[in-house]
């Protein structure tokens, strides 16, 4: 069990490093392309390590480790420093790092949930309704359910898996003009259309189950950020102007008042990065399927020959 967990942690680091390097070096940097690569970095260690363990138990034996493995944990297992096993120390540090990365995202969210008052649903103002109709038409989808929260904090979120609902706060409506509000709504509608909330929940479950793997935590974070980038690009495409989306994002970044949630404060630098990506036309070329397949096959091979 511990060996299996250690192997998933090692595989997570390998997969995340490989994917991060490919994303940095490849000419294609569209959010969808990055999303697929991060999904690969997240799922390959989680699924392949147990499968390899089940189908090829000989992979863990000395013969394979000594003759075939690229990296074997047993080769450095006797390494000690002042009586402390270096392997065990590395494993402990990695587990603590993974848990910290997980808590970094979980705690602000949990604190906000605890502090958050119940949604004070009031009637949706007509201009918000018309903006949502405009956004839904631009997105080519049926308008999702809308709830107006009479809260001063600028907040817009998509909740629910099967029948997503958009929650718009009074603070956000007061912050954004008509076009910006439509763009922000189009962004959330993209999440609703693609069922991103379900994917986000599944990713959070994987993160909780494999909290000890820093590689997986980094890949999951990057994946969620690229989900947001994808929604930004979809909204920009639907509204016909990325600058409107950038404007709405920057207003959100600039609204540092007492109403801002901890979650949003942590996201500020991420929002700025999303704005830069939206305005960078060089990054819109999609990844080739061939490159994705080669990466998947290569990663599967690489992980097969890496034994904890």
């Amino acid at each position, binding site marked *: 069990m511990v060996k299996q967990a250690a192997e998933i942690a090692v595989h997570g680091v*390998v997969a995340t*490093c490989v994917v991060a390097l490919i994303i940095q070096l490849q000419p294609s940097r569209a959010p969808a392309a990055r999303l697929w690569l991060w999904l690969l970095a997240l799922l390959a260690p989680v699924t392949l390590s147990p499968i390899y363990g089940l189908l090829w138990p000989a992979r863990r034996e*000395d013969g394979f480790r000594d003759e075939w493995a690229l990296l*074997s944990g047993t*080769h450095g297992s006797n*390494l000690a420093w002042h009586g402390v096993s270096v392997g065990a120390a590395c494993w402990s540090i990695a587990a603590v790092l993974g848990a910290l990365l997980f808590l970094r995202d979980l705690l602000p969210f949990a604190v906000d949930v605890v502090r958050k008052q119940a949604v004070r649903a009031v009637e949706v103002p007509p201009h918000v309704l018309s903006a949502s109709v405009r956004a839904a038409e631009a997105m080519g989808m049926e308008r999702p359910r809308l709830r107006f929260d009479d809260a001063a904090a600028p907040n817009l979120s998509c909740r629910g898996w099967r029948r997503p609902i958009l929650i718009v706060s009074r603070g956000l409506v007061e912050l954004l003009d008509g076009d910006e509000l439509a763009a922000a709504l189009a962004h959330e509608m993209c999440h609703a259309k693609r069922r991103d909330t379900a994917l986000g929940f599944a990713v959070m479950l994987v993160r909780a189950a494999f909290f000890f793997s820093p590689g997986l935590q980094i890949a999951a974070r990057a994946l969620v950020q690229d989900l947001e980038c994808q929604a930004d690009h979809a909204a920009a495409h639907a509204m016909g102007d990325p600058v409107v989306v950038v404007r709405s994002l920057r207003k959100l970044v600039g609204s540092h008042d007492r109403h801002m949630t901890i979650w949003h404060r942590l996201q500020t630098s991420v929002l700025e990065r999303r704005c830069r990506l939206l305005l960078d036309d060089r990054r819109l070329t999609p990844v080739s399927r061939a490159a994705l397949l080669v990466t998947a096959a290569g990663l599967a091979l690489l992980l097969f020959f890496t034994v904890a």
Partner: protein
Amino acid sequence: MKALLHRPNQVPSPRSARAVATAVLVLAGAAGVLRLGDAVATWLVGLPRGVHACANLDQAQAETGVPVAVLRALPDWHPVAIRTTTRPAPAVAATFRSPRVAAELVFYRSRAGAIPDRLRTPLATFHAVEVSLSRDHKAILAAELLPGGGTLQELAWSDANQHTVMRFTGRTVDLLRLANLIIDEDLRAR
């Protein structure tokens, strides 16, 4: 503005080829880095790849199936390092020291094959003779000159599908006596 929103349906082939080449290069580089990491760990541990350290002789016997319990014949000698390998033949190497003798004894034994070179580095012997350890046991006694002027002696014999080698920095007579004790214990164990 159109450039910002441009979403080509098909990837131009040179771009695709470049993306594939990048992925291949990164994957190959990662394989190299992993192999290098393994080599560094192996080098830091100080054991060749395929050689493992064991905490005690029982563990070494359990890992390889090579009988080393005969070393109970040498109660004064304490193991200071035990190494094993399983390929190409399972083998054990154990280094012993005794508080009574200012010499080091290294015991090698393999089963179903010669003792692998990665466990036992070959000697540059200047002298080798056949000696008789008992009525049924003939052995080869060889010696190598050490840099300090001393000699390292090696006694090797084969018996019932297992090969045994002893290297000793002490006197020849002590080495032969220790070998006899081991052979006696071996026979008793059977």
